């Protein structure tokens, strides 16, 4: 089995579902002959035809709205938004319709769609190409939010997202697209959307993160291990609804929590997780939990993007504060 990158794993999962489920249709800007600006859909139109892989006009509200109509009529559209900085015109359709149609029709209609989008900073991209905005979608009832952090999880979680009977926003960390390779078996096995993944076990402190920041978080755990601190690293993976059982179980053991994300701090998902843990396991905490996040500023152009993104050092420092606290 050849090792593949995360973006190749996305391609593999898309191809698998296109081949096995005639209801799956891909749509988006430049996903056809061009294969997507990140090459996530390369070769798919050639292989499955223009009736399964559709280049759309340039309009994101349109992409979301079309997907909703298609999904309600029985297709399983997988739509690509070219960069997460361009996802905002979909917010209206996603919150007012995609996440709402099942409950407002009491189950008569539903929206089994996926909205895929590259996400995050760190690849020296132009303005508006480096945003992390998962928290906006996590606040939408009826919408699942998922992000993978390895090729294998990208494959398994994307399969699950496509098969899920409800709308899923699927954030793909651009920084990881080509960073690592992993053996990924094309066995059509989906991963569950109701669980976090424990990537590293540890008894001293719980580090929760997702997407590209998993990379720095694991490195921080490695650094901490050099001084004998065993950090447990949890990949949140499904950002909404959140599997709190895994996190609470971990915190019950470690008594210490750091949440790491790239998105701005205020009203980000780090707040959500700290709050829930404080509410439900406040007495388990040996020290105040801490967030390490992007700052409450516009994602800067790339000369400063590394100063914006949480660094291994900041994570380690935060963990040490919590350990000493």
């Amino acid at each position, binding site marked *: 089995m050849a090792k593949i990158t995360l973006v190749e794993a996305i391609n593999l999962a898309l191809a698998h579902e296109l081949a096995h489920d005639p209801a799956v249709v891909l749509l988006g800007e430049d996903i056809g002959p061009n294969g997507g600006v990140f090459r996530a859909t390369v070769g798919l139109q050639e292989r499955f035809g223009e009736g399964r892989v559709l280049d759309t006009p340039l309009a994101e509200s349109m992409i979301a709205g079309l997907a909703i109509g*298609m999904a309600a009529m029985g297709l399983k559209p997988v739509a690509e938004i070219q960069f997460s900085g361009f996802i905002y015109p979909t917010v209206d359709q996603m919150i007012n319709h995609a996440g709402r149609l099942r409950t407002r029709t009491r189950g*008569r209609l539903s929206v089994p769609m996926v909205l895929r989008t590259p996400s995050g900073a760190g690849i020296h991209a132009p303005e508006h190409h480096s945003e992390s905005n998962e928290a906006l979608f996590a606040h939408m009832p009826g919408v699942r939010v998922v992000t993978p952090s390895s090729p294998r999880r990208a494959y398994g979680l994307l399969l699950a997202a496509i098969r899920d009977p409800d709308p899923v926003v699927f954030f793909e960390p651009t920084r990881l697209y080509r960073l690592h390779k992993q053996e990924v078996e094309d066995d059509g096995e989906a991963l569950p959307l109701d669980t976090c993944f424990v990537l590293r076990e540890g008894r001293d402190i719980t580090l929760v993160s997702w997407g590209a920041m998993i990379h720095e978080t694991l490195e921080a755990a490695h650094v901490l291990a050099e001084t004998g601190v065993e950090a447990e690293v949890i990949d949140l993976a499904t950002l909404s609804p959140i599997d709190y059982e895994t996190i609470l179980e971990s915190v019950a053991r470690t008594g210490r929590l750091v949440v790491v994300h790239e998105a701005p701090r205020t009203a980000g998902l780090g707040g959500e997780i700290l709050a829930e843990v404080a509410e439900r396991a406040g007495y388990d905490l040996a020290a105040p939990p801490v967030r390490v996040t992007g700052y409450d500023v516009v994602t800067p152009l790339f000369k400063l993007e590394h100063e914006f993104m949480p660094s291994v050092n900041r994570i380690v420092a935060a963990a040490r504060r919590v350990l000493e606290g």
Partner: protein
Amino acid sequence: MPSIVAHFDVPLVRCLDAEGRVVGDLPPLASDTETLRAIFRAMLRVRLFDTKAVALQRTGQLGTYASCLGHEALHVGIGSALRPEDAFFPTYREYGTQLWRGVKMSEILLFWGGDERGSAFAEQPHDFPWAVPIGTQMLHASGAALAFRLRHEARVALAIIGDGGTSQGDFYEALNAAGVWSLPAVFVVANNRWAISVPLAKQTAAQTLAQKAIAAGLPGVQVDGNDLLAVRSVLDDAIERARRGHGPTLVEALTYRLSDHTTADDARRYRGKEEVDRAWAEEPLVRLRRFLAERGLWTEAEEKRWTERCQEDIEEAVRAYLATGKPSPADMFDYTFATLPAGLAAQRAEALAAVEASPHG
């Protein structure tokens, strides 16, 4: 001298004038007397239902309600022109279409009575529920039409939108998408001259709304929306065209909102009585009734019988509506996802416990 590289005309179709006199070519439907009578009955029925719904709101038995007064020819015209397997994408006042397509009067009342079960449509499987966020439904229709197209189904998606709605980006994006893929879609603009208090002249500088089709490379047609025969003539062509795979059409139906915007509105604040009086002279029931009566296809006695029959049905629907208990708080949770996530299950339990603890809030 610049050369002319493109050229467009916007036609207007009329069949009957305000008095029911023939003023244009009649469609085949004009000689299908049974269908015509059924359509007129449906127009009368929805007028009666609408009157009752407003009364229910006025007496505190219904929430805010959007009347369809004056739109009956357009709405029933659409309902009768579509096939059951087609899909309809309404705004919030097309009861005439919905009743024809299997939505129940009690469901309409439930919706405006603050109950999601009103959108569950027991006998209409695939039509979308009311779209309150203006313009959004246009894209759903294009999406549905795209699904029909990709699956090679001979089905048509029809969306309706108001004159105000034509200012929304979604309106235009939907038309453009339908054009690109030559989708089996029909878009109807109900130009009733007002978007709440905003008159058409403040909505757009376009002299017709049909011409908005040109932006997307679609044909655009204006029709007298109070003239059932004209409405059907234009819609039958547009739907047939879509069904045969020849692409979408934009239809601008000229009509008038004879009522307040909703029961929460008071139109006297922003428009004069004379304008409304003039519009009443053009309303759709009179002319079709006269057209039928003059051909011996409708009598006063029939109208009386049918009215009574409708009133009974309406009363029954109102009883069913009023007898429908409050939904369970559990319903808030049980349809959020296909299966209940753990966190939501806990919130559900909390909500049920809270209601138990203090049933009156």
